[in-house]
């Protein structure tokens, strides 16, 4: 089925798809065919996906239809195709983390979040592109070529969940899963005009998420609007006994009612420093005004350690990554480079299998953990991490949530920052602090630049405030009244 020139109304919302499939007015197979056709037509330009198996998708959709025909209409995501970041393990489908070192790897199990998607009646549409092992902020570090921002194909979609964000923004999938270590859900959400949630650390199971930095990684939803984001979060969230860092109990979504009246919104001075794009500043200021108009109060707060978040973050993630990626040694899976003795096999396999940024980070982390440097780098970073957590706790004594920009600028052109690691690292300046403290944070669309590039605002809250952030974002979304439908076609080809 070729996509019609006018997208069907249900393509604007995953909840609408699930409702229509449940009441029988729409078949899961028709939904699958619609998105497969869009993928076929537009993904060559966007390159959001690394792997799509149309036959398997249709079979899954048929199975959902058969289930409904038999009277079983359970599942919150009935017939909803979901694009899954390729660092989440899918049983029987390739999972490469966009790395040549995992080329052809097919996991023997489903990640918990993927199993929960399937149990909710969702269909895994395909595996999306990312910066190799989620290390990057532009998806240019993919071992299989960059993804592009559907709002302007010359620009990056952000990263590392760039493929997931690009897929939803381009209307290739109604929902996507990403992972956020230092901003990898929120930054691409902002750059692609989506809602992206980084849950409280432990709110979503990491079992089956290929580890980059275990103490910071969280799986998070990417959606066209807050309601869809909530829907997906309610499916994937909640305790998992296979993840020792998983929080007890089910995920608690947003409460009904007015989220803005009396809300104390902290405005960190440090988030409005030099280098912040004026259009971004203006868009966030508009959100502040709308919130105040709705009864919220702005509270100036100070987070002076913000400037230390980037070095702290990069020391922690590289250290953990150097250990997490040690299992990629060519022994048990993945391609192997035979090269004489064992150590040469290791060196050749890893030296040729990992890309530039991954090797750089492994080097950095190995160095930071090695004898003689441990205290000066790794331990020092963990101490500063402690201080950053305390600073947040203090701020949340004065306010309920923090509001600011998600990124300093809208999407930047491909190649602009890829030659300078430190410039690329600075993309995470607003998104790296919350993960260091395990806090939930959410990016939502708050406007666009004159050039039509989306701009995102970020809400950060204390531990466990995920539901509250969703409620606030939902209220602000209503007042912002932006067009949140997916693009009919990518722009700027």
């Amino acid at each position, binding site marked *: 089925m070729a996509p019609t020139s006018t997208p069907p109304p249900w393509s604007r919302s995953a909840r609408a798809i699930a409702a229509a499939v449940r009441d029988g007015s729409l078949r899961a197979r028709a939904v699958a065919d619609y998105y497969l056709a869009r993928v076929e037509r537009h993904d060559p330009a966007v390159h959001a996906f690394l792997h799509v198996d149309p036959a398997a998708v249709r079979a899954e959709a048929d199975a959902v239809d058969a289930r409904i025909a038999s009277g079983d209409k359970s599942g919150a995501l009935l017939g909803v195709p979901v694009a899954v970041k390729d660092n989440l393990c899918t049983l029987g489908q390739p999972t490469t983390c966009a790395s040549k070192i995992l080329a052809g790897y097919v996991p023997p199990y489903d990640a918990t979040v993927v199993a929960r998607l399937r149990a909710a009646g969702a269909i895994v549409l395909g595996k999306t592109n990312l910066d190799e092992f989620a290390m990057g902020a532009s998806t240019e570090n993919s071992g299989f070529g960059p993804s592009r921002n559907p709002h302007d194909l010359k620009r990056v979609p952000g990263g590392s969940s760039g493929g997931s964000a690009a897929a939803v923004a381009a209307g290739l999938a109604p929902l996507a899963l990403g992972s956020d270590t230092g901003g990898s859900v929120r930054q691409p959400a902002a750059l692609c005009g989506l809602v992206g949630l980084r849950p409280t650390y432990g709110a979503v199971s990491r079992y089956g*998420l290929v580890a980059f930095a275990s103490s910071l990684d969280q799986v998070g939803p990417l959606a066209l609007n807050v309601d869809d984001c909530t829907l997906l979060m309610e499916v994937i969230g909640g305790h998992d006994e*296979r993840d*020792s*860092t998983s929080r007890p109990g089910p995920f608690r979504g947003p409460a009904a009612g007015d989220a803005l009246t009396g809300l104390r919104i902290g405005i960190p001075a440090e988030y409005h420093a030099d280098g912040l794009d004026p259009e971004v500043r203006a868009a966030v200021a508009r959100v502040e005004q709308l919130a105040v108009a709705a009864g919220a109060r702005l509270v100036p707060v100070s987070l002076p350690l913000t400037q230390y978040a980037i070095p702290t973050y990069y020391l922690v993630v590289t250290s953990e990554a150097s250990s997490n990626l040690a299992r990629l040694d060519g022994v048990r899976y993945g391609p192997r480079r035979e090269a004489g003795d064992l150590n040469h096999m290791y060196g050749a396999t890893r030296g040729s299998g990992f890309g530039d940024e991954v090797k750089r980070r492994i080097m950095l982390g190995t160095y930071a*953990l090695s004898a003689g440097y441990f205290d000066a780098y790794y331990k020092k970073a963990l101490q500063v991490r402690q201080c950053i957590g305390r600073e947040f706790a203090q701020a949340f004594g004065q306010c309920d949530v923090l509001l600011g920009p998600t990124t300093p600028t809208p999407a930047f052109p491909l190649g602009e920052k890829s030659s300078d690691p430190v410039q690329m690292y600075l993309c995470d300046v607003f998104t790296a602090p919350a993960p260091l403290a395990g806090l939930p944070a959410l990016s939502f669309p708050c406007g666009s630049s004159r050039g039509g590039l989306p701009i995102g605002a970020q809400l950060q809250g204390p531990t466990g405030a995920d539901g509250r952030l969703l409620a606030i974002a939902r209220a602000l979304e209503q007042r912002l009244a932006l067009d949140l439908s997916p693009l009919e076609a990518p722009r700027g080809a």
Partner: protein
Amino acid sequence: MELEPVIGLEVHCQLATRSKLFCRCEAGFGGLPNSRICPVCTAQPGVLPVLNAAALELAIKAGLALSCQVRTEMKFDRKNYFYPDLPKGYQISQFDEPLCEWGELSFEVEKGHSKVTKIRRIHMEEDAGKALHPEGASSSLVDLNRAGVPLVEIVGQPDLASPAEASAYLQALRRTLRFAGISDCDMEKGSLRCDANVSVRPKGQKEFGTKVEVKNINSFKNVERALMFEIARQSEMVGRGEKVIQETRSFRDTEGTTVAMRKKENADDYRYFPDPDLPLFDVGQARIDSLRAALPENWASKRARYQADWKLPDHDARVLTEEPATARFFESVVAAGLAPKTAANWIQGEVLAFLGETKGDIEQLKTTPAQLRALVEMEDTEVLSHQAAKKVLRRMLENGEEPRRVAEALDLLQIRDSGTLAATVDAVLAQETKIVADFRGGKETALNALLGRVMKATKGKGDPNVIKELLVAKLRA
């Protein structure tokens, strides 16, 4: 210059759990290579560890059995190194905060001379797999069945002064762990492994000499062999004025020697750091206290109690506390009503001999304590002679039958009826006229000869006391 050795042992002991430390795979032994593996213990991308509750409890019990201080809050660290039997490229272990510290172990160097050694630390860690190196082959073969099996590493203070002390320490440690139910400590199956740190120094010198680590000591008898060789090797070097090199050496069983192991590149930089996949664990004082309360009595206390309360000789008490199952059986036989010394005699004699011959396991014994008591009662009430009782027990051990049934089946019940016996006595007296004459001529010992003849005629079943009475009565008549 007289030299003295300084020895410290590092013992790895497999905890007796059903499943592995961080995954649900069976923690068994034997079977096909790579048959007890799963995504977690083969380190597939994305998997995470979840701690086995029983492993934690056994590790705490190990600490309590060795009088350690046990932490109420615990963390795990990663020890990073590359090796094909180490799937994750790191081992989950405990670095600077071991679960247990500062314990002690008393052991008997020789009879009457005991020594107490400090236990420095006990920490939990996962085992690696096994890399086999077929002779002459250009490749090695990896089996991950062991990968992830729960271990404790028990590090003793380096103050053992001889191979004999080291051996005695290890035996006492093994017995302690077995009595506490922590591990079967079977060196052949690899559930107990021992590495030794050895150095020599001039007698009286305070500073330690250069330390050599000896690995791959694969049996109890090899502990002394390996240490004797290594001490002699180091002493000769010092004697020649050479310097001992700090290194790791491997014990070679066939030659009884130690050889330097190839130095692993950068092996000493393990880049330990806290494992971010595992949060802190609440061990909890309550858990420690309840495990302490439930800790089985250790062998040393049993040994003392058997001697003090039950008046067993030292030798008996030792034999019965060699293995926990022996002590358990002994105590249950006493509880069934047998006098301790009687129980001890039967167990040390027939029961252990039977198990020795049949390579049996006392846990699988078919004879129950109640049956053993019934047997002894039959002997006490003179239904069975001592010799016959031994025969009956043997059959009982073989097939688990009741003693009376066995005795009947074997036709071993004593004949005590004087009417029945009188006929046999009369027949013997009629036949053995010479012995009868000897007795009547004053040779008292002739009575025993006559008793023997009657016993023989009853095939040993006649009650000797009744026969004796009959003989005396008839001879003096």
